[in-house]
């Protein structure tokens, strides 16, 4: 076949670190707003002479963050461990159960309602029970965070596994593919973007679950995560320290989201629309 091929791949290599003016604006605009708000906050606190136990200024909070970094960073590590482990277990179990659902309609029909029940029951309401039932505090916190993080991964992955292209399924059938080959080479790759979207939601939820459980476990627990520091600082009217812990919680949430977004981008950038960014699309 000698004829020239119509069209040509239009993929120009995307610029790496060199950012377009648009991209700079995207970074700069929120930073400017942030600085303005912080400046206004500091000014308000000073001008009105608001005492730090009502509302500390950003500078006082930053000072507290630096001063108490020793205890705060130790607590951050505890919360991070709970969150990360819960997310990992949620991802593994969610994926496994979704595959079981996709393989057997009966398994899906009989178990899915219970997954929903687990999801819709507020974690604050069941956390005390779990903490009573499970002797190990670390484990009970992990279970709470897991319960919250589990469902988005399960439901997203299930949808993904079931949205396989029918023609591709026919093609696999035509070539006599085994059930395992269909799962491994067709259904799982199809479900990948859905799984990763679920993981991104669950990352934030795992942190929320961990913090909520820590709050419920409270001072009774011997684990000392960030929520425990917030409670403790509240009792002691150490409001700047309370804010510092809060900053760490938010920062952790943002970091988790960014890390999972990056993971998703790296895994999908070659083929999936969601990870292609701007530029020409076909």
């Amino acid at each position, binding site marked *: 076949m000698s004829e020239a091929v119509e*069209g040509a791949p239009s993929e120009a290599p995307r610029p790496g670190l060199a950012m377009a003016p648009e991209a700079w604006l995207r970074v700069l605009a929120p930073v400017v707003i942030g600085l303005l708000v912080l400046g206004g906050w500091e000014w308000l606190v000073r001008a009105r002479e608001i005492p730090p136990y009502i509302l500390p200024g950003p500078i006082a909070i930053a000072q507290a963050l630096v001063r108490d970094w020793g205890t705060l960073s130790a607590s951050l590590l505890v919360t991070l461990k709970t969150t990360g482990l819960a997310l990992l277990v949620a991802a593994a179990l969610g994926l496994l159960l979704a595959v079981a659902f996709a393989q057997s309609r009966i398994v899906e029909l009989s178990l899915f309602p219970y997954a929903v029940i687990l999801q819709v029951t507020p974690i604050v309401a069941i956390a005390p029970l779990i903490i009573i039932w499970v002797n190990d505090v670390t484990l009970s916190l992990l279970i709470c965070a897991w319960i919250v993080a589990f469902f988005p991964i399960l439901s997203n992955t299930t949808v993904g596994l079931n949205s396989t292209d029918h023609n591709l399924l026919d*093609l696999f059938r*035509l070539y006599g593919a085994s059930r395992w080959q269909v799962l491994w080479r067709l259904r799982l790759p199809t479900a990948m973007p859905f799984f990763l979207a679920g993981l991104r939601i669950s990352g934030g939820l795992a942190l929320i679950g961990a913090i909520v459980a820590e709050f419920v476990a409270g001072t009774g627990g011997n684990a000392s995560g960030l929520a425990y520091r917030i409670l403790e600082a509240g009792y002691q009217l150490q409001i700047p320290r309370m804010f510092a812990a809060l900053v760490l919680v938010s920062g952790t949430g943002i970091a988790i989201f960014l890390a999972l977004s990056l993971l998703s981008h790296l895994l999908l950038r070659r083929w999936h629309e969601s990870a292609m960014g701007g530029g020409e699309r076909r």
Partner: protein
Amino acid sequence: MSAASLVSLRGVAKRYATGTLAVRGIDLDIAPGDFVALLGPSGCGKSTLLRMVAGLAEPTGGRIAWPGGQPSARDIGFVFQEPTLMPWATAQANVALPLELAGMPRAEAASRAASMLARVGLQGFEKAYPRALSGGMKMRVSLARALVTKPRLLLMDEPFAALDEITRFRLNNDLLELWTAERFTVVFVTHSVFESVYLAQRIVVMAPRPGRIHAELAVDAPAPRGEEFRTSADYAAHCREVSQALAAAMAPAAA
């Protein structure tokens, strides 16, 4: 049944679970090396017929026989209306799929896929992902995948319907070139009179509701056909004849 047939359909019918009769009373013999076009309006069951020949659907009546022996998974190639490529796999990996599913070692499957890609004019695009390819190029990958197992029978379900006319003409020529060189058997579903006359040796005109064979016409123009055939009086005469048959097939439905 003619013993020389590759596949032979006798009284084949398909009734869907919903009760709709898709096709009935289909008698059709396809000889090795034939290029048969199934031509008809949408809803005449030509895709259903193709899926039954492929073994993707079971007939509810009649029988489909393979005088030369039941085909194995590698004996049939199928090209869908859409390119139907795996978006996460490169062009080469997509083409290698049928071989890998059959258990061929990766390296060998990859080299066969690469040479098949070259055969359809896609040398240099082995590592390209489907998203980076144009519609025509994706269809070429799909064609390469269907041919990589060296099938005896190539089934094509309106493969070029979604392409622009210029690209379609080019792919028609390339398909004819491949067919002339390899002489596999082709059953080509289309709703275009012009495409069927240009490509096929035999045109089976189907009538709708329920789908059935209305007429069979031979296109005795010599192979290889090229662009000059498209503008010849012979081509125009065949098109007129086939158009009339198609109009007659649809007449009761239009009334």
